[in-house]
Every structure is written in C-alpha cells, then in structure tokens.
C-alpha cells in the first residue's frame, strides 16, 4: 500500500482492521479512525442490479455524513460487471450478488487485497406473478402451468439461483417457455410491464416492485442463500472514500437500510 500521508494510511488501516472485526463495528471504527478528516472526491461503485434501490438510499445517507463525497453507480448483472472491470473499466468498489464472481476478480488480481473483500447481505429467491395471481400459482411446482416464464441469463447469479430453485423442486421447464432477461430487474419487468406470466427473481426486487406484481414466497427448504459480497478494487484512485463506503455498508445504519429493502443479515 502506498499513501502519501501517514494519517491517511492510519485511518485506512484502522477502518480496515475494524471492519474485519465484523458487521456493526464499521461505523464506530470509521469515526474513530479519522475524527476530523473530511472525505472527498468521487467514487464509482459497480453493483449488481438487484442492489439498485437499496444502494441509492445508502449512498444518500452516506453523503449526508460526508457532504463532499460523490457516489456514482454502475448497475448491471454481476458477471457483466466483472467482465467490464477485467476489460479496464474504472471503478472503485464492486458489489456482486454472489461470491464466485468476486473470486474471479481476486484471481485476475483486480481486487485490492483479500482483506477488502466482505460479505455484507443475504437474499432469497421469490416468484413474481401478475397482480392478483390469475394463474393461482402457490408453489414452485405450479410454475409448470405458466405459458412464459421470465428468468435471468443462465450465466448471471440470479439465473443460476433460479435454476437451483427449479432443480430443488424437481421441475424441468422447457427452454422454449423461458425468456431470458439481461439482468434481475428486467426479468421482473417482463412480468410487470410485459406478458410473462411469472418470474423467479430476488425477493428484494419483488418487494420493491410493490403493486405491479404479486409475490409468491418460496419456502426455505426449496430456496437458495444468495450471499452478496463487496470488494475494493486495485485501480481505485480514491481508496479512503471507497473503504469508507464499504465500511458504511457494514455499519449499523447501512445494514438497517439494506434490511428495509428485504435483505437479510449476513
């Protein structure tokens, strides 16, 4: 690590060590590490599209405490974000809907260091259907009755999680009934504004879609445990702000905001 000023290095290392200690400690450590240091500059956060609602709120709260900071977002499917970063797209922080995509970045040397890699939330899958549930879908098994099912691409996390859910329910749906969306949000849009009968997407996305779709929950035994992870990127040129953002995500306030969107504590 190379920092121009020792104070900055101290602040960063203290907050990193503190964040290693676990969720809920981050915020305190960040205040402890840099009591009068004013964070500034712009950071770019590449995040899974299922985080778009919650991250915008978190950035608002983060900026309230750090008025000189600007947070720019780049939302997309986790695997396309990884591809962008490997192709050299400038970004300070990445947050994915799984662990394996960030592992790809660790392997290609794009993550600033394993200590900057954190799991910060969990999510589940759920079924979204047309408002009022006209096809009376109650279980995953009932999905065999739909005409068109909307899923994410089979290589992005939400598509892989959906495949696991269908597999756990021993349900084999013909590919000719499946429309593949570019990311989690658009998979849901195919039901809310399009003509797909159902979608298997993140619970948080279904919750934030409010009245445009109806929610059918999937029991735990047939569900997955989507673990969201975040990392600092090697090419970041504003590491102290980027690390502060990661810490904020793990802080009590950040966690509360995430949970208000339906995410589960790690």
């Amino acid at each position, binding site marked *: 690590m190379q920092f121009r000023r020792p104070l900055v290095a101290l602040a960063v290392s203290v907050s990193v060590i503190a964040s290693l200690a676990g969720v809920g400690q981050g915020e305190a450590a960040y205040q402890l590490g840099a009591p009068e240091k004013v964070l500034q500059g712009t950071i770019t956060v590449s995040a899974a599209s299922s985080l778009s609602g919650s991250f915008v709120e978190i950035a608002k709260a983060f900026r309230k405490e750090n008025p000189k900071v600007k947070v720019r977002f780049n939302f997309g499917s986790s695997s396309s974000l990884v591809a962008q970063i490997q192709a050299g797209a400038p970004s300070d922080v990445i947050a994915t809907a799984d662990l394996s995509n960030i592992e790809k970045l660790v392997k290609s040397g794009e993550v600033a260091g394993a200590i900057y890699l954190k799991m910060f939330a969990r999510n589940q899958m759920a079924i979204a259907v047309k408002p009022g549930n006209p096809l009376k879908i109650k279980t995953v098994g009932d999905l065999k009755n739909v005409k068109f099912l909307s899923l994410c691409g089979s290589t992005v996390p939400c598509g892989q999680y959906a495949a696991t859910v269908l597999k756990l329910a021993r349900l084999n749906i013909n590919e000719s009934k499946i429309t593949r969306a570019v990311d989690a949000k658009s998979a849901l849009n*195919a039901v809310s504004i399009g003509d797909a009968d159902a979608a298997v997407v993140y619970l948080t996305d279904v919750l934030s879609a409010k009245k445009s779709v109806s929610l059918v929950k999937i029991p735990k035994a047939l569900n997955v445990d989507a673990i969201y992870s975040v990392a600092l990127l090697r090419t970041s040129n504003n590491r102290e702000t980027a690390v502060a953002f990661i810490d904020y995500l793990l802080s009590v306030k950040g966690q509360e905001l995430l949970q208000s969107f339906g995410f589960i504590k790690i």
Partner: protein
Amino acid sequence: MTKRRPISRPPLFIYIGAMFGVVYICLPLVSLLRNISWGSLLSQLTDGPTLSALRLSLVTSVAATVLALILGLPLAWVLARVPFRGNYLVRAFVMLPMVLPPVVGGVALLAAYGKSNGLLGALLFDSFGVQLTFSPIGVVIAEAFVALPFLVMAVEGGLRAIDSRYEELASTMGANEAKKFYLVTLRLLRPSLVAGIAVAWARALGEFGATITFAGNIQGRTQTTPLAVYLLLESDPQAAYSLSFVLLVVCVLVLISMRDRWLGSKR
C-alpha cells in the same frame, strides 16, 4: 453527363479530421477480428442455438423489411408529394424510432400490442386468442418499428429528387396512373428504393432493445442473433465474437453494395 468542374482541394486539417474519423470507426471493428478463433468459426456458427438464432434473424429481418416497405413506400410518397398542414409533424413522429432508445420503443410496443396491458393487443387476445409478444411475429413487429424510418427517409429523398417533368410527360403521352407509376416513377426511384431496403434490412438485423423488451428472448423462438451475442458474451465469448463477425460481414457487404445509392441522387 457533363464533365465535372475541378474542385479545389480541401485544406490539410480536413484531411486529418477525416483520417481520425475513419480510424475512430474502423479501429474497434478491426480489433474485433483479433478475438475470433478462425479454426473453430464454422463449428461455433453451426452449433444448435447459434444456428437457430441466425436462421431466425434472417427470416424475421426479411419479413420486417417487407412490412417496412409496404407501410413505408406510401408514407414516403405522401410526405414527399402531398403538401398538407402538419406535414412536418407527421415526419417527426415517423422518424422518432430512429432516435428513441430502442428499449423505450419496446415498452411503447408493449403498451400497444401487449397481451395483458396493450391497447390493441388485449383486444386481439380476448377476441381471437392472438398473442404477439414472445412470438416470431412480435420480433418482426419490433424490427419493422425501428427499420421503417430508415426506409421512409431514403425513399422520400429519392422521390423529391425525381424530376416531375418525366411523369408529366408520361401523362401527356396517355399513360394512366398505374402505368405512369410502374414505367416512370418506380424506375427513377429504384436506386433510393434499393438503398432504403438495404439500410432498413441492416437495421432490422441488428435490432436488440425493442426486440428483447417486446418479443422477449426465447431460444429458438424469439432469440435473434444480437440477443444471442449478448447472452453468449458471458457464457461463451468465442461464439459471441464469431456471431458478431457474421453480423459485421453481412452489414459491410450490404453497405458496400449500395455504394453511392444511399443519398438517392445518382441520376
């Protein structure tokens, strides 16, 4: 043809600007070639899902061009030849899909022809059981929607460039409307008509946003080549590059074959 007057040579900075323009467009396209594994090109293109995407693209883009022609030719005619109030407004609306984000076009198509919420689509489904979304016909509708303005623009330009004295002459020589249209107007219009068809077809072939939003992305049913490229970029980048290469070659061939017909002024 009269001999052209020699044109004065443009200043140096114009040459430099033009050179940068060429590099700007060509560098990414040529760079794409580096990613292609030539040895396995054929096997990648004849792979099941890839082949069905290519086949679907060919069929739907041709059908979309025919639809654009049926709707676009009369439209261009009226815009070029009939002076009426609000002419410019009609033209602005017809050209809209050219500049609109295609996804917005797809959402608009859903609002009109969707099964569940579409103005016309709900009626179609309730009375005849016809569903346009998630069907190859839906792909054709989405592609024609974005391709139509290109056809209208080329044909309207061509019609304006035709010297109307030829048509008047045909009338005085006793040709009826149909004969005049077929023997005179259509022949004079041919270069711009060909150009319009070619550009509309190339645009339909490359359509992505409106298609995935309106017709979905169902393998073998509505998954056209650009949609397959997008999904393959993550699972099998090599196959994605091979498919992109095919699209590129086809479009280059179309544009080269048109040469100077695009502006419709070759007389």
